[in-house]
């Protein structure tokens, strides 16, 4: 009887005890869509399907390299147009089977890549790989980090223009709070602003993306939690926007940590497990959960953790892992810290197993 009562209470309470569960379920739907008998599935949700018709597929890339499975239950069209927004410069499209050619390939000034594939002929299934060439093997590269723009979207071009001047940056990594309330107009506005950025932007969400709908973000930017590999470095983005990870994400994380074993591994999320200023508690709601996560990351050799949420810059160690809080995207800044807007540059050398972080001030 006691167990039954406890179970009933536990189930009732679980709605508030797992505030991210709905988003996790939505993560699983990212990259999947159907149009009649035409179905699309992006591997690991590495891109969000923005538009699908019989002859056109539009995607928002959430990772530098990704694969897409296309299936037709009935006859496929003669040609298919594939548009990839937030595309890596130099990205190419490869089609499997190779007998289906890529007719045209171009990149617009807004960072979108457009491809035409065909004739598809009698094929009922295709695999597409969108990736810049030579990025499978480990090689040194540079990426940037910026978080917490919120209400400062109108001023974000100050940061983007400075980012565009930085040499050799392959992409911008975000740790959430792109917008103030996560409304559709704000998310669309941010994507329009990104058209002025020369490099793609891969991010997770922050608590400020939860203002209107918990799952609206995913329609625009893709999964909240995901992992990808680029030039021999593994990147894992986690949805900690509610000051917690869902238990399902912990399961995914185990798999991603295993994939990242033996290579440099960067983990980014919005709310840090532990706020470097403990009494503020801008970290996880549950310190035990924070330690549980850090123990997993440390035991699997994660090399760098990147957080947002706190509108300043902090460098510290959590569970022995170097940690950088960078919330300098323009949201109301932490005062008296002499910091202001900023972003980070990370020079990654997977061959030397080195990740060097430097800070670039915008103001």
């Amino acid at each position, binding site marked *: 009887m006691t167990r039954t009562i406890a179970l009933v209470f536990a189930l009732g309470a679980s709605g508030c005890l797992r505030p991210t569960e709905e988003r996790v379920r939505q993560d699983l739907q990212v990259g999947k869509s159907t149009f009649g008998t035409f179905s699309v599935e992006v591997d690991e949700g590495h891109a969000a399907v923005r538009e699908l018709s019989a002859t056109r597929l539009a995607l928002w890339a959430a990772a530098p390299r990704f694969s897409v499975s296309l299936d037709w239950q009935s006859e496929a069209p003669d040609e298919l147009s594939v548009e990839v927004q937030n595309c890596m410069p130099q990205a190419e499209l490869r089609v499997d089977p190779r007998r289906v050619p890529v007719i045209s390939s171009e990149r617009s000034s807004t960072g979108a890549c457009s491809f035409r594939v065909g004739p598809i002929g009698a094929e009922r299934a295709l695999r597409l790989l969108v990736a810049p060439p030579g990025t499978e093997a480990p090689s040194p590269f540079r990426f940037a980090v910026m978080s917490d723009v919120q209400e400062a979207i109108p001023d974000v071009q100050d940061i983007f223009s400075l980012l565009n001047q930085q040499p050799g940056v392959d992409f911008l990594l975000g740790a959430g709070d792109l917008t103030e309330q996560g409304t559709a107009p704000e998310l669309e506005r941010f994507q329009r602003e990104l058209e002025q950025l020369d490099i793609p932007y891969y991010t997770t969400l922050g608590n400020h993306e939860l203002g209107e709908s918990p799952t609206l973000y995913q329609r625009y930017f893709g999964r909240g939690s995901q992992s990808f590999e680029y030039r021999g470095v593994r990147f894992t983005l986690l949805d900690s926007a509610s000051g917690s990870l869902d238990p399902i994400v912990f399961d995914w994380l185990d798999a991603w940590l295993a994939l990242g074993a033996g290579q440099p591994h960067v983990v980014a999320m919005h709310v840090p497990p532990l706020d470097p200023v403990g*009494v503020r508690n801008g970290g996880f709601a549950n310190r035990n959960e924070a330690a549980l996560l850090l123990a997993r990351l440390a035991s699997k050799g994660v090399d760098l953790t990147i957080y947002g949420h706190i509108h300043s810059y902090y460098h510290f160690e959590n569970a022995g892992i170097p940690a950088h809080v960078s919330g300098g995207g323009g949201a109301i800044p932490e*005062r008296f810290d002499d910091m202001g807007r900023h972003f980070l540059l990370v020079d990654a050398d997977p061959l030397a197993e080195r990740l060097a972080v430097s800070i670039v001030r915008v103001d």
Partner: protein
Amino acid sequence: MRARPLDRLALDRPALGPRASGGGLLTGALRAFVGLALWAVSGLAATPARADTSSRSTDPAALTARPEPRIGSPLPEIAAVFPGLIVHGSGVWLQHRNQTAQRLLVLEGAGLFTTFLSGFVLFQTGAARNLVGPTALGAVAGVGTFGVSFLANVYATWAPPEGFGQAQRRLPLLESRFGYLYVYDPQFDFRHFVTTRVDGRLGPWRLGMGTAHAPAQGNQRLELFTGHRFLGPRADSTTAAADGSYLELQLGFSEHRFDSSGFVSRVVESKLEGRVDSARYLPDVHGAFFQLEAGYARQWFSFDLPGVGTTTATSLLLAHMGFGVYLGNRAPQAAGPTGGEVELYYDHRHDGFAAGLKVRGLGSGPAGHLGLSGSYQFSPRWGLRAQTEFGSAWTLGLSAVIRAGVR
């Protein structure tokens, strides 16, 4: 029920009228802030003589004497909830208890003022690292004051004049507990704990320990604490305290082992814990109390996993605000005291089992957890204690209480 014309109602509330209408926002805010300070000072530092007159009165007529209500039951009881949620003291004002209504309103104002002031500072400074500790404490105090003020407003309206019980005015030398704790935390597999606690007192001093042990689930928690009571009931005093109000400085250490997860949490804490019986601030509200706590803790996480042996240090803001009700007659008798108390509270702790609240919207993380605790001594020696907390986890505990050295 007698119908009362509106002009008569206005005349019947001299204590509220001129003050409530006079002054601007700033004046009101200052008055509210002063009210909060006065509340704390008057509660914790009230002289025993005053306490005697306010809460130790055993004259039933003095306790139950109340003015003719403006309007009969159940409207005051309803008004205590709404509009009492917005205007604290609405219910007791309808019961014609003007001073109580005024003081509840001041308490509410103090809570709101402190909340908005803290929120303003947090917003303007971006929760700056050097200011956030006291400012966050102010925010917790403000929201907590608003909350306990509302609960006091409901209790003051609903409860009988003498309350439901009296405070325990003399403590046992030794109290031990043995019980069970259920914990539902979606992040961890542990669920069932055996709990023990021993709490000994000698004069103003206190020394105790508590444990929670999940035998098959790799989780153990140990707490050690000591305290010095400056004011209030003690274990060995020859005379009983004036009421249940007290002030105690506590030092504590806890070790929480998550062996199956590869880490240990250790916390060293210092806090000031106090209780103010309701009658010290609301003279005609008996049998209830305000519970307060503020402190600071350092926390160390030690990670012990293959290839990992490191410690991460952080800090904790400790704050607790609750409103409680005494149950039963705990006045010293030949056979010793019986009775108990229940408390509804907010606790800002983010460690322990319950930790902080998670919410679906923007604000998950900074808040602590909510709790409800209750204890009752069926005899001077034997009792029961139950507690439930809701934060990142949901807990439910039940334990037997055994007391020794009861006067």
